[in-house]
């Protein structure tokens, strides 16, 4: 990786945000709604990327952080009648706490064991959601009532069911996380994470505390994923156990691999691309998992760096 010039990188990212903002006024209704969803899920992918791309920890259980945010926010609204900001904060807190506990346990392992342990914890989380069906709605899920999905700011109240408000809220969340990710990656801490990925022993020898650095990364990653989940519950009004299943742990991995691991914009591109591939093919066949499977195999075989990773390697070395 060449030394990135900060101006170029920030211009590119702000450009992407401005582009997404303009698209809001141009896109037809269907794609408008789809893009709002994609931005929220891209946040999930960015959270995943922080851990997988930069620290090199492959988790197969990130669905639990997403659904911790989803259920944390959704159940706070449904059962406790909390306001939107409070519920969002509750989702974040659930995700952060869960990530801390899981991090403390799972980081004792490494490599293949880490993948299996995270997968098993996520499975436990999923089964717990099913077990407490009285509160969580089990595999039917719950609908967050429209009347509760209103954001009150001073005198104005914004209904999150309104397409424009929904799109803009998704964009705000996406932009904050994107710029935060760029900041983290370019910071001293981000470099330590990459150093751990590249050579853990050497980084340890240089005097860095591997465990606590990794733990912070797990918590930050889990919290970002929870933010995505909480936003999903509040913006789209559905909370369901599917989001906690293994499939939703695999999807962010696929999105990040496709867009390019360890690139800041890769998660967005991967999510966007995969979502549209599935959307278009589902017009012809219901077997969208087949596409996911083939995409996964082709990616690891031929494009292990993903779209942006390949572009960075070939042409644009400064890409963050």
């Amino acid at each position, binding site marked *: 990786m060449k030394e990135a010039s900060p101006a170029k990188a920030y211009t590119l990212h702000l450009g992407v945000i401005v582009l997404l903002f303009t698209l809001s006024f141009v896109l037809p209704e269907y794609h408008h709604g789809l893009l709002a969803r994609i931005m929220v899920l891209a946040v999930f992918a960015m959270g995943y990327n922080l851990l997988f791309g930069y620290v090199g920890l492959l988790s197969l259980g990130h669905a639990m952080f997403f659904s911790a945010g989803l259920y944390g926010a959704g159940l706070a609204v449904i059962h406790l009648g909390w306001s939107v900001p409070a519920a969002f904060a509750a989702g974040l807190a659930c995700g952060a706490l869960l990530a801390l506990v899981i991090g403390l*346990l799972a980081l*004792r392992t490494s490599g*293949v064991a880490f*993948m299996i342990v995270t997968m098993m914890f996520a499975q436990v989380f999923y089964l*717990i959601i099913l*077990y407490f069906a009285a509160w969580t709605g089990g595999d039917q899920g719950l609908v967050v009532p429209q009347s509760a999905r209103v954001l009150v700011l001073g005198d104005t109240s914004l209904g999150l069911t309104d397409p424009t408000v929904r799109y803009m809220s998704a964009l705000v969340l996406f932009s904050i996380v994107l710029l935060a990710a760029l900041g983290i990656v370019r910071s001293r801490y981000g470099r330590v994470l990459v150093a751990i990925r590249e050579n853990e022993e050497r980084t340890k020898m240089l005097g860095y505390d591997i465990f606590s650095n990794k733990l912070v990364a797990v918590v930050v990653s889990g919290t970002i994923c929870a933010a995505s989940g909480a936003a999903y519950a509040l913006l789209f009004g559905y909370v369901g156990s599917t989001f906690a299943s293994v499939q939703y742990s695999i999807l962010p991995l696929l999105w990040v691999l496709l867009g390019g691991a360890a690139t800041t914009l890769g998660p967005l591109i991967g999510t966007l691309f995969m979502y549209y591939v599935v959307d278009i093919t589902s017009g012809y066949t219901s077997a969208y998992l087949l596409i996911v*499977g*083939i995409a996964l*195999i082709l990616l*690891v075989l031929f494009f292990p760096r993903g779209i942006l990773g390949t572009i960075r390697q070939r042409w644009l070395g400064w890409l963050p």
Partner: protein
Amino acid sequence: MHFGPHLLLAALEGLVTSAVLALTALGLSLVFGVMRVVNVAHGEFFMLGAVLAWAISTAISGHPALGFLAALVLAPLIVGLIALVSERLVLRRLNYNPEATIVATIGMLYIIQQLALTFYGPEARPVEPPFSYRILLPWFGYSGYKLWIIAASALLLVATWFVLTRTKIGLVMRATQYDSETAQAFGIPVDRVYAGVFALGAMLAAVAAVLIVPISQAHYLMGQDPLLLSFIVVIIGGLGSLRGTVVAAVLIGLSDGIISVFFSPTLAKIIATLLVAMVLVFRPQGLFGTASR
């Protein structure tokens, strides 16, 4: 029914589960032990075995035992062939990199599952057992076929153990497992051993599925539970240890049978999964395994 006979029934059911589980988990364990590949698609090979058993036994008319015997021989062979092809086309090209192979086998899982859904359909279909003899115990009648499952899989386990420890093929496999580079230097075709082990692992899962399918049913999603349970067994038994795998399978199968009779199955799964995750965190070499080299 009183508590004692009830417990006996639960234990018998548990033993049937253990028998099938031991075969499936042994396949997973062999692949991990020798190739260091975590095969997430293992459950799908199990499912394929059951689905093929249905296809073969319905294609052959006459006495049900005839169709079943044909399935018992043919289904594992076909599954082994599929595994062999996917190993050559995908895993070998990834140089058996542990993380890349996990992602690739997840891909295989989705592909196999969707193809099964497309060509076989979402229905659960039964396979007729080769014989229906009921053994009458003083408290209840018990299916003779289920006892036969236990015997058949015990026989297959002993055969696998014999091949692994008493034959040249087993020696070659163990040498590859111990140190693949040195094995290669001594002229062992490591590459072909890997291909064979992957096929063998899939075949063990397929045999287990053919044995169980007359008393459960063939369904395109049936691979998920065996996969999770096999993971649990392999982890508790210690990755790559045959004896540990069998002991753990009996332990898990029995407790699964007994717990599900007396408690909610979901709660049983939560507790089991959590316990296993903790074993992996605090005793990564498994309860019976030795410390990793």
